[in-house]
């Protein structure tokens, strides 16, 4: 096995998420649909400086451009 260069690029958590995604996509149709739900995240985060919040950023940006964001950024 090639000596692990992935550690320079991303964390172990990302590594497991990629492996999990590969596994989910390899399942039979019915099980795949159920498993896909377990892998979804619509996480948004916001950096704070000095008591002020910055811009809200999606971790996985949604595909449709037309959908307006539901929550108001504080």
């Amino acid at each position, binding site marked *: 096995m090639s000596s692990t260069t992935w*550690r320079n690029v991303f*964390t*172990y958590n*990302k590594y*497991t998420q990629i492996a999990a995604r590969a596994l989910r996509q390899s399942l039979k149709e019915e099980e795949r649909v159920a498993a896909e739900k377990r892998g*979804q*995240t619509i*996480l948004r985060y916001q950096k*704070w400086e000095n008591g002020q919040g910055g811009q809200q950023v999606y971790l996985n940006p949604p595909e449709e451009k037309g959908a307006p964001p539901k929550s108001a950024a504080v």
Partner: protein
Amino acid sequence: MLARRTLGRLAAQPPVLGAAPAGARNMATLREIELRLKSVRNIEKITKSMKMIASTKLNKAQRAMVAGKQYGVANAEVFKNAPPEAPAKRKLVIVVSSDKGLCGGIHSSVSKATRRLFADKEAGLEPSSPIMVIGDKSKAQLSRALPKNIVLTFNQIGRDIPTFADAAGVADLILKSGVEYDGIAIVYNKFLSAISYESAVVEVETESTLKESPGFKAYEMEDDVTKDLAEFALANAIYAALVESHACEQSARRNAMDNASKNASDMISRLQMQYNRGRQAAITNELVDIITGASAL
């Protein structure tokens, strides 16, 4: 029905010289009571349906919690056998709450626990320790109490059962953010029973504290693998906390909506009594007027 029509006729009659129309004030009060009754009935319907929804969500959330807690337990095992040499001074405090309200005291319980952590002189937590908040409600509360400490906030978690993908995303963002800390404390709500919860703190060690711990040094682990373990342990702990807090939130929302429905139905019966009494009083007044008028003829 009858009362309202006769009231209308009464108001249409020219008022007696000098006296205010006797039915006018009663009619305004009756109309008000009727409107209030209608709105409280609507509120009762809404809170009842919210309670039903929260009960069904609670069942699902509890099952997910039982499964998710195993991650936290496995985590705790490692840290129990490899305790840190010295207690951390500069801890990263991760506060777990959610974006939605109407769930009783869930968010304020976690915010209060965080403020207690910072106010506690004995524990010796550095006052400039960074805070990261998951959930808009606690973010709003803590941005008023400890605004300078907040470094990162997350939202859109907790709409549905939290997934490990959520927890892994949060853990990665924390690790990438480059914030400095010696230890991590996760503040969340512990599920005691379907009607009670309490805030709790779970400690997670960083890679460096793990490496220095004598219990860990007994095994000669490669640095790479230790880093993986620390990262994975953080994601595990966050996942366990997220799932348990989610279950607490659903149970608190169910209880809150249950209380609200009970209060609303109490209010409805009280208002109904008031309305009936007012209606009967108006009818009686009318009758008295008519009879006095008839007796004068």
